[in-house]
Every structure is written in structure tokens, then in C-alpha cells.
């Protein structure tokens, strides 16, 4: 135990003495949290719309008025030519074009379906589908008004009342911030701990350490504990930020969040340390860690729902610690889930952590 203490003490001395390390650990995460939380959003707040109205009747103008009065739509051009609208879309000045043909009102009045053409710029697939969902809902509102104006009794149809649990206003930040906290903890865990071991190899200090009676597990533990503490500290800073700056609700037990993070850190640090035992330079270890991290992050459900991934990808996520952590932290923070709800995932992470750390200790060689 005393030996581990000496290594931990040494690591802390070195971390706090490293001029680059302090900003990396304390400033960059705060920036990341602030920038990503505000900037990374799937919400569409402004849709540039081009309108082609070849009907020019009360009905057609009424439909267009529906769009104009929506806070999300901004009409960037009017015309009577589809070609001109396409030009706007080509140049990126418009996201969407709505085209009404002559006879729109006549069709409505005679009880025939009236056609509306909607063209979306689908360069960004998810934005395009959101856009068309907005458009469809505006048009169906318009429909309802027309139907009730013809037949006042028709308004008595089943009315859908939506309510969104755990994130009533569908605030994107509520969803994103816990995920970004996960990212912070992961980067500290996977990169710093692993890089630290490789650094000793690279500058040769490992040579002197290896001839000492330090046991393998003592060395690994001595490398792990400092960054484990730093990562948990970072999580605390992040949670305070989430609460104060973003007013993210923390419904569950805060200690449960730290318990999950502690177990999770064992896994990512284990991966980082394992990578460090198979590489010889910081460059190699950095590259490998990035490779692993990017795959883990993109598959984790941080940006896209895991449920919509193909089955094989979801199967792969069984070994993705980030997926477990994001799922758990969202459950606890936003849903207020208790220990019994996450015990299975937590158990898996614990097993995973034990396995990968054992592998790292086993793979670490004091002799060549």
C-alpha cells in the first residue's frame, strides 16, 4: 500500500507541474461543455422557404400565411416558377420549396384533393426529415381548418394530446449534456492514464522503475488512482456546470452517478492502460486510443439513438463501455432511476473493468 501511495504522490506532483496538463485537465473540459452543449443541436430553428404560388387565391395565400406565421419558417422568395425556386435550393439560400399549382382553391371547393408539392434540401438527412415533419404538421393544421369550415361538426375527431416525459420541453441540452459529461470522463480516463505509462517508456524512466521491487499491480494501481480521482473531480465540476449553467435536472441520487462513473472509469482506464502496454510511443498509443474512442463514441448513442442502429451494430455495443455509461447516466440524471434499475448494466461494467484491468496487468512486462 505504501508503495502505491508513493507512486500516486509522484504522479500528482508530475501532473500539477506539467504546464500543458493543467489546462488540458481543467480548462478544455469546461470549454467543451459550454461549446458543445450550446452548439450541437438537432433542432431546426430557421427554415428558409421559397414559395411558388401559381394559384393566387384566398386559399393558397392562407396556406402560405400559415408558414409565414410559424416562428420556424422564413420566406426567402416568392415566384411563379419552380425553376427559380430550385435555383435558391441549389445555391443553399433556401432549405425548402413549396409549390402550389393553378386550381388549388378550385379543387378544395369542389371536394377534390388539392396537391401541394414540397421539395426539401436533404444534404443533411436528419434535418430534412425534421423539416418535412414540421411542414406536414402545418399543412395538416390547414386541412383541419378547411374541413371545419365546411362542416363544423367534423372538428370533433379524436384529438392527440402529447406529453414528453423526463424532458417535457424536448430540450436538446437536457439530452446532450449528460452525454458530454460522459465524453469528458472518458477522455481523461482513456487518454491520460494510458499516455502516462507510455511516456515512461518513451523517456526511459521505466527502466529505472522496472529494476525496483514494485509489483505490476502496484505500478498499474499507482498510475490509475491519480487519473481516477482527477476524472471524478472533473465529473463533479461538469455536474455543477450542468446544474447551474444549463439547469439540467439531476433527479437521481448524485452518489449513484459517482458510483457509476467510478466503475466505468475502471473500464476505460483499463483499456487505456492495456493499449499503453502494447505500444512504445505516446504517438502510437494516442492514435490507437483515438481509433477506439471514435468508434465507441459514434456507436454509443450520444448523437444517434442506439435503437435505430442495425442489429449487428447493437450487438457490437455489448463491448462498448460508453454506451452503458450514457444509458445509465441519462437514466439516473433525467429519469431518477435508482440502483435496482441500473444494477445489470453496472454489473456488466464491473466485470468488464475487472477483465480488462487484469489483462493490462498481465500484459505489462517488467522484463523484455
Amino acid at each position, binding site marked *: 500500500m505504501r*508503495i502505491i501511495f*508513493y507512486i500516486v504522490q509522484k504522479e500528482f506532483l*508530475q501532473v500539477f507541474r506539467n504546464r500543458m496538463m493543467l489546462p488540458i485537465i481543467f480548462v478544455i473540459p469546461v470549454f467543451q461543455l459550454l461549446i458543445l452543449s450550446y452548439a450541437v443541436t438537432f433542432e431546426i430553428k430557421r427554415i428558409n422557404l421559397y414559395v411558388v404560388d401559381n394559384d393566387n387565391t384566398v386559399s393558397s395565400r392562407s396556406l402560405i400565411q400559415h408558414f409565414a406565421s410559424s416562428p420556424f419558417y422564413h420566406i426567402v422568395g416568392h415566384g411563379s416558377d419552380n425553376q427559380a425556386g430550385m435555383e435558391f435550393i441549389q445555391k443553399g439560400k433556401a432549405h425548402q420549396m413549396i409549390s402550389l399549382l393553378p386550381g388549388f382553391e378550385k379543387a378544395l371547393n369542389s371536394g377534390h384533393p388539392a396537391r401541394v408539392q414540397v421539395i426539401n434540401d436533404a444534404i443533411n438527412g436528419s434535418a430534412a426529415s425534421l423539416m418535412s415533419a414540421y411542414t406536414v404538421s402545418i399543412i395538416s393544421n390547414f386541412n383541419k381548418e378547411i374541413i371545419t369550415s365546411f362542416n363544423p361538426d367534423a372538428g370533433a375527431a379524436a384529438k392527440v394530446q402529447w406529453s414528453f416525459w423526463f424532458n417535457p420541453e424536448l430540450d436538446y441540452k437536457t439530452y446532450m449534456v449528460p452525454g458530454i459529461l460522459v465524453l469528458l470522463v472518458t477522455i481523461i480516463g482513456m487518454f491520460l492514464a494510458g499516455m502516462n505509462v507510455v511516456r515512461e517508456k518513451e523517456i*526511459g*524512466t521505466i527502466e*529505472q522503475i522496472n*529494476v*525496483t*521491487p514494485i509489483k505490476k499491480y502496484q505500478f498499474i494501481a499507482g498510475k490509475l488512482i491519480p487519473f481516477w480521482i482527477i476524472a471524478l473531480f472533473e465529473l463533479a465540476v461538469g455536474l455543477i456546470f450542468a446544474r447551474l449553467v444549463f439547469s439540467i435536472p439531476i433527479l437521481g441520487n448524485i452518489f449513484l452517478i459517482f458510483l457509476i462513473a467510478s466503475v466505468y472509469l475502471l473500464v476505460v482506464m483499463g483499456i487505456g492502460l492495456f493499449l499503453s502496454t502494447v505500444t512504445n510511443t505516446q504517438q502510437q498509443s494516442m492514435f490507437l486510443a483515438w481509433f477506439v474512442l471514435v468508434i465507441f463514441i459514434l456507436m454509443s448513442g450520444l448523437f444517434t439513438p442506439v435503437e435505430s442502429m442495425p442489429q449487428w451494430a447493437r450487438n457490437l455495443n455489448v463491448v462498448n463501455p460508453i454506451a452503458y455509461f450514457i444509458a445509465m447516466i441519462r437514466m439516473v440524471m433525467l429519469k431518477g432511476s435508482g440502483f435496482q434499475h441500473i444494477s445489470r448494466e453496472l454489473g456488466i461494467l464491473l466485470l468488464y473493468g475487472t477483465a480488462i484491468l487484469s489483462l493490462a496487468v498481465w500484459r505489462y512486462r517488467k*522484463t523484455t
Partner: protein
Amino acid sequence: MGTSEYAIECASISKSYGKVKALQELSFSVKKGEIFGFIGPDGAGKTTLFRILTTLLLPDTGTALVDGLDVVKDYKALRRILGYMPGRFSLYQDLTVEENLQFFAGIFQADIRENYYLIRDIYEQIAPFAKRKAGKLSGGMKQKLALSCALIHKPVVLVLDEPTTGVDAVSRREFWEMLIRLKNDGITIVVATPYMDEATLCDRVALIQHGRILATDTPQAITNAFPWQLFEVKSTDTLNMINLLKQHPEVHNADMFGETVHVSVKPGRISADDLFSYLQEHGHLQSEIIQGNPGIEDCFIDLMRMTNE
């Protein structure tokens, strides 16, 4: 611990890196309490041997016992009693002098005060810089700190890999004075050096080349065993003179040693005067010849030639 009179016993140690044979059937013994030097050029296999002795590298074949402990089987116990100074400075450059010493004392669970007498002479020289980061020390200071850290747990055997390479002449001499003091404290020291002049400071030396030991003995015995008679010749036209000397039937070899040329001849066959007149006959009027005593370097070069032939 060990009861034999030897601190280190190596029997036919071999180590290859792929096709390169770094060590070939190396056998030697180091007596307790002596300074044993490995003298040889870069790439001779000194570092490989030292890494085997310090349990960092596993030999392909052969056995090595350090203080009676096998370097492969008893590596755990061995690491407690070894002091090792690698050729490359391997302390933490971002920790201060003091912190480095405390760290190494800590992981060996050694008491600095209890063992301070061992390092007092060395550490007092760097103590004024106790708060300075190790990376900011001069080469000589770094070596003193590394030696202090290697000694703080009171090792039985001290292994030093080229401790004086890249260190100025004054620091080198001081460093060797310390080694001799440590020897008097009963520590067995194994040291590698490419400097032939340091060989005479060792109790015994092994000349090593291409992973083979050419000779092992006291420096005196090695120079005594030099099979030739040696003359030191000075001239204004050294290069031509060397060629000329090599053509003389009695001359075994002629090598440049700084400003002089060391000429080895079959013993008792010719005198300095004979050589002088030989050179004069061939136009070297201004030469100067004296009887010389062979040094370790002369022996080394001669042994090297013999094995290569």
C-alpha cells in the same frame, strides 16, 4: 545472502536480437567487494549484459547468479538488492532532486536517514540544488543524483552502465573517487565504460568485443600479458611513418595514439636505436623513439586483432 566468494557468477550467457548475436557464451565471475569493469566499444554488448544482470532482459541460454540469486528465477528478491544506473538518464526530469531521491527511497521502502552515510559525499555536492528539477541539472550533477538514487536502498551489488559517458573530466574523476569509497563500504560494483583510462581504476576488468570476452584479469596482469615489446615513436610525418614501420620485418603492428605511434615488435629482437636508424635510412630524419609500457588500450587492440584474424 550468498555465501560464495563471488557476487556475480555468469555461465555461458547468450542473447540474440534476431540474427544479431549480442552476447555469445559469456562466462565470468565478479568477486565480492571489487570494482569490476567491462571495457569495450559501443555495441560490444555491455548494455545487453547489464540488462540481463538487472533482470530487465531474459538471456537465451546460460545462467547468471547475482549474490547467489538467479536473474530469471529469483528476480523478485534480486530487485531488492540491486542498484542500477542505466546508460540513459532515467530519473524523472520534472521532479526535483529531492523528490527523485524521496520517491526511490519510498518505493524501496528504505529510510533515507539510515542509509544517508552511503550517499553523503555524493549527495552533499548536489544538495544545494535540492529544489531544482532533475532535468535542469548539468550532466555531472545528473550522474551524481542517479548514483544517489541507485544507492539509497543500500544495494549489495551496484551496476553502472557507462556512468561517465558525456561527463567532463573533473566530474569523471570525482565520480570514480566515489566509486572507490563505495567499494570500501563493501558494495560490489560492476561498471561499463568505453574509456580505457578508467580501466586502471578497476580491480579487475573484462575486455569485451562483439559479445565476447577477450580477456579477464587485473589491469596490471592484462598489461603484463602483452606479448610484444612496445616503442613510442614521434615524427613530423606520422602517416608515412606508420606505413614504413609496418613494412619492417620485426614489427608486429603500428597504431596511432594521439600524437605518438605505438609500435609493437617481437620482444628482444630489436632496440629503439635499430628502429631509429631504420627510419633514418628511409628519410625520416626527425623522429623520436622511446621504450614504452603497454596500456589497456594497446592490449585491447592487440586482442581484438587476434580474435578477428
